[in-house]
């Protein structure tokens, strides 16, 4: 963890997260993010509950015509056809189809939601495990602390790819059995556990460091001198001050996890084929590259969606760090490993 090379006179006391600052920094990207989410959830908003059915309808329409007949849409949706469905339909035709004739646009929508879901759940798991592990280590102190942190150190020094793959390989059989052969669900859960199995490490380190330094702060000492109990200090002084760093790191785990899922999909061990995710779709596009025929839409649209999502999430995370955690240096970020 890097700290300022010279002592700063700025008080480390609680600084209110300035919402205005946050909004000025990342309003554009929040808008982008919400727009993508709104578009991705449109099939549900318009109550075309069954995206598979819709996909079938699009696929079996007259494939050559640039705009497919509206009949297919009307038959597959419960609600009345609207102007929005017409526009979406046109967009879907313009974005093209993959090698099995599936509409790329209709696969991108759930793909985005699945990727985002993986990111958010991985962040949730990382927060729960990391915060528990880090704070227990810091509060226990002494030998327990040392032993717990050595575990983190060893896990850190193993190559990232290997840890994820081993976790995934090890978990596949027991978890598939646990879910009674529901391999799609089991696959998602395994993926989540494998990804968050490495992202909680950074969180544990950050939380431990934060708790250790908070414990020595004058205001905690003052509270203790005033006769406050252990639980009171934890609840009133330690926990509120932990919220900032935890939020910041959780926000950074989301794009990281999406990136890791894309990487695992590239290895062929991410989301299993019928289910789309941004990484899976981008990989399919990359694999379709050849020197004879250009299927440019298969690579351009999924990659653009993936990059746009990650850029938006990273900008929001960065702005969150600026607003909530002004004293933290991004040196601590180097402890999180990038997927290459």
């Amino acid at each position: 963890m890097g700290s300022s090379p010279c002592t700063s006179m700025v008080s480390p006391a609680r600084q209110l997260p300035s919402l205005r600052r946050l909004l000025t920094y990342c309003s554009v990207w929040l808008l982008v993010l919400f727009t993508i989410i709104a578009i991705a959830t449109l099939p549900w908003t318009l109550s075309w509950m069954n995206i598979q059915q819709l996909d079938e309808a699009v696929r079996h329409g007259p494939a050559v015509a640039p705009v497919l007949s509206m009949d297919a849409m009307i038959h597959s949706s419960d609600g009345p056809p609207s102007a929005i469905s017409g526009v979406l339909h046109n967009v879907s035709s313009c974005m093209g189809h993959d090698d099995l004739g599936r509409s790329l646009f209709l696969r991108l929508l759930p793909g985005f939601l699945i990727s985002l879901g993986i990111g958010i759940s991985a962040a949730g798991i990382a927060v729960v495990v990391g915060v528990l592990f880090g704070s227990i280590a810091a509060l226990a102190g002494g030998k327990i602390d040392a032993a717990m942190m050595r575990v983190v150190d060893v896990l850190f020094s193993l190559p990232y790819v290997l840890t994820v793959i081993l976790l995934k390989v090890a978990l596949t059989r027991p978890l598939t059995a646990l879910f009674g052969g529901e391999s799609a669900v089991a696959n998602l859960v395994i993926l989540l556990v494998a990804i968050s199995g490495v992202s909680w490490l950074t969180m544990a380190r950050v939380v431990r460091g934060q708790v250790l330094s908070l414990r020595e702060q004058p205001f905690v000492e003052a509270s203790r001198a005033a006769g406050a109990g252990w639980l009171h200090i934890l609840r009133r002084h330690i926990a509120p001050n932990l919220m900032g760093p935890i939020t910041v790191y959780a926000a950074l785990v989301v794009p990281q996890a999406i990136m890791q899922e894309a990487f695992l999909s590239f290895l062929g061990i991410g989301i299993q084929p019928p289910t789309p995710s941004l990484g899976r779709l981008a990989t399919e596009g990359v694999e379709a590259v050849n020197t004879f025929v250009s299927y440019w839409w298969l690579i351009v649209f999924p990659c653009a969606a993936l990059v746009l999502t990650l850029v938006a999430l990273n900008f929001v995370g960065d702005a969150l760090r600026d607003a909530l955690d002004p004293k933290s240096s991004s040196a601590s970020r180097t402890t999180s490993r990038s997927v290459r």
Partner: protein
Amino acid sequence: MIQKIIKRLLAGVATLLIVYAATFVMAVSIPGNPFQSGDRNMPAEAEQALRARYHMDNNWTFFTEYLAGAIRLDFGPAFTYSDWTCNQIIASALPVSMLIGLLAILIALIIGIPLGVVGAVRRDRLPDFVGLSIVILGISIPTFVTGTAALTLFCVYLKWLPVGGWGTVWHLPLPAITLSLPFIAYIARLTRTSMIGTLECDFIRTARAKGLPERVVIWKHALRVAFLPVLSYLGPATAQAMTGSFVVEKVFGIPGLGQHFVNAALNRDPGLILATVLVFSAMLIALNIVVDLLYGVVDPRIKAAV
């Protein structure tokens, strides 16, 4: 000084042992083994004989035998690559990965540090915003996207460079640049943050008060101190870059070490898993010691830190 280095080396050996044990437990406890390839399995007797040959019938003897071999730097056979020993695989793949990794780190330093310094000096202005955008793009675009895009543009359409493969100087730039992008981002970010902190220090004010030109104050006085966090990041980063990247190797068709990390784990090949992990960890530990030594060179105040 020398005593301290020896102490660090001994601690490193202990860490390697722990990493070895942890990896061993993981490699042995995963279901499946290299002798079962799926559809065509060898007879049980043959598998038993092979296991006995490589001391794999008993986990404990495998543990000790492999360790004894590893101490002599002999990592045994790679079960899933017939006719190859782990040593041969590492000897052929590691130099390739090290070359590309070193180039990538050099590129990252040459581009990342000026980017960070300019971002810190022109804080919250246009250059800072441009720098931040480059950083975020660097960490946001997956390597397989940048790699494929670079390959398509420079090799297929413009035909400036050969498409994939290995052997000439012209095969180097694209993989090295692709690999360096995330490192550029991290180094630029680190430099910016630490530079902002350093520019508020008293000795910078003194240097300015002496009438030194701003160029000298920033690039000689401030950067020397601001470089320290980057230096400590360089240890793990260089180890990571020099052990290869699966994605870059697959996109550009390079015979590097990164693919073996992935394939060994996917093939459940315990010998190769242990060999690759030990190489990576040894490199990580060695580079961390080097970084700590360099710390004293860059900032004489912390000579005792080693």
